[in-house]
């Protein structure tokens, strides 16, 4: 054996003895958790409580929702979560939830980036309508299709509607072709994911610790991508309000599954797990 071969062998043995399996193991190396990302759906709003389709309507948190958001912040504080940057939507229920999280964790000075791309799915012509009424009017099946189909949107709004974003000052700077008159989960994803890729992911890669305070459907879009969830499963996934959802990501921003994750998610919710499961069930009951 040549001297070079001997020393190569020696090196391999040395590596094995220190447990550097990445060199010698034939198993695919499981990514090491490098980044922590926290997602949180806003607290209950006055319209959640009134069971109305909300979408881009800018309803405030209800008193219960404010309380939930504060509790969520406290959970984050207990878990000693530190952030560098917060993303949220243009809608006050998410922004307020974000502010509560920062206040409770004593990080109010952090940059908060509001992004319309993180808005809730736009509910088009159903915006403002009571869910039970709509079921009575259109039938449970049709409403279920509009709510839970992956790519069938509710009826589009007329541009003269008060709910058309073109009539809302907040979106005055948006190109007109970006303004939705209705959305499905598919089209919601089409605006959420490019924003994630272009704006959020690079910052996470650069080592910034991010919290995203957003909405049921914009978060569904995100976790669908992170957890590789199929279309027919994501439409039935309920994300409970104001419950921090923690993801560990590796260097390639692939999710490192958590032992406490509730399938199909690979991230874990903070808080009492039984209560969390009950809340997941609770969201499902809104159009029973």
């Amino acid at each position: 054996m040549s001297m070079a071969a001997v020393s190569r062998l020696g090196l391999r043995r040395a590596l094995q003895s220190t447990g550097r399996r990445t060199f010698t193991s034939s198993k695919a190396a499981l990514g090491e958790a490098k980044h922590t990302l926290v997602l949180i759906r806003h607290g209950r709003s006055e319209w959640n409580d009134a069971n109305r389709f909300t979408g881009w309507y800018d309803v405030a948190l209800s008193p219960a929702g404010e309380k939930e958001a504060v509790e969520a912040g406290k959970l984050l504080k207990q878990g000693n979560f530190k952030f560098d940057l917060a993303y949220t939507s243009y809608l006050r229920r998410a922004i307020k939830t974000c502010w509560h999280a920062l206040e409770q964790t004593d990080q109010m000075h952090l940059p908060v980036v509001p992004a319309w791309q993180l808005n809730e799915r736009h509910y088009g012509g159903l915006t403002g309508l009571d869910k039970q009424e709509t079921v009575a009017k259109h039938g449970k099946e049709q409403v279920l299709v509009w709510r839970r189909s992956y790519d069938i949107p509710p009826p589009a709004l007329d541009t003269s509607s008060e709910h058309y974003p073109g009539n809302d000052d907040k979106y005055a700077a948006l190109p007109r072709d970006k303004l939705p008159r209705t959305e499905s989960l598919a089209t919601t994803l089409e605006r959420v994911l490019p924003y994630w890729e272009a704006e959020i992911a690079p910052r996470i890669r650069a080592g910034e610790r991010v919290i995203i305070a957003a909405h049921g459907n914009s978060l569904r879009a995100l976790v669908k991508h992170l957890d590789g969830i199929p279309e027919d499963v994501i439409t039935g996934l309920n994300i409970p309000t104001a419950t921090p959802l923690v993801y560990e990501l590796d260097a390639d921003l692939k999710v490192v599954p958590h032992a406490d994750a509730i399938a199909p998610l690979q991230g874990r919710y903070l808080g009492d797990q039984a209560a969390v499961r009950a809340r997941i069930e609770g969201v499902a009951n809104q159009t029973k």
Partner: protein
Amino acid sequence: MTLSSHPEVAEALALEQPTVEAKYRVIFMRHGESTYNAEGRFIGWADPPLSALGEEEARGAGQLLREYGLGDVDEIFVSYLKRSIKTGWIVAEELGRSHIPVSSDWRLNEQMYGALEGLLKRDVAREHGLELTQKWRRSYDIAPPAVPGARGYFPAGDPKYADLTDDDAPESWCGSARTESLKDTQARAWRLWKERIAPRARAGRTCLVVAHGNVIRALLKRLDGVGAERLRDVCIPRAVPLVYELDADMRPVRAAQAMGPLSARYLANPGQIAARMKLESNEAQLGLHVPDAEAAGGGGGGGGGSGGDSGIESGGGTAAAA
């Protein structure tokens, strides 16, 4: 009736004034009451939250902006201190504009108060005497005493300032630990003004600066050309929007309702302003009677000198009553 009060003469005189067009708008505002304000403590970079009253004052400020038709704020600038940030959030919410940029910067922090931070103003005045206390509160280039046992400009161990070093401190800083003069405050705050706030205003954005008494006084000294002596009497009441209209060169256009050395107008009637100013009088703040001889501009209220970290003062406000 004097000659100049004769209507035709007055008109002729008015026509001779060059009309300066207001082009940009920047609104300044001091945060609402914090728990330390309520307790009569020096604050500086200490970071107490708003009191319940303070949150109410903040909401009131938002309402005032709406009532006066100035609710179309585009950007809010706040400090790193929660009393400023919370006030900014509450105002944004009141205006139905939670989504507008709220930018935090340490350079809008209140003037540092060194070893005095957290101490009761009353106690400090009793221990060190009125003259020295007023020097610490009101002078332009005297810094309050350094924090004993500390080193450097930024509070060590506070994660908010973890990325900052003495190189980021104002150039004029004398090196005394965790304290600065109003001049130092101005140096850093003006840098922020030039770098971030003025450009946004020039871009046509209505800017709301929600900050602290002394840092606002320091900024206005430069923006509004107030001399160091006159500055002593400038009093910034809590949570009352102070509206500056600026010309194309970013120079203040004097408002019809302007009071004293400031060119801006408060969004409140003189009675409301006087009431807020009274809260900040030396008597209210220091629990001491201040001899009238010390009163600089304008009578009434608590007489002379002026206020430390609240930047509030005596006579200034009640000049409005005259």
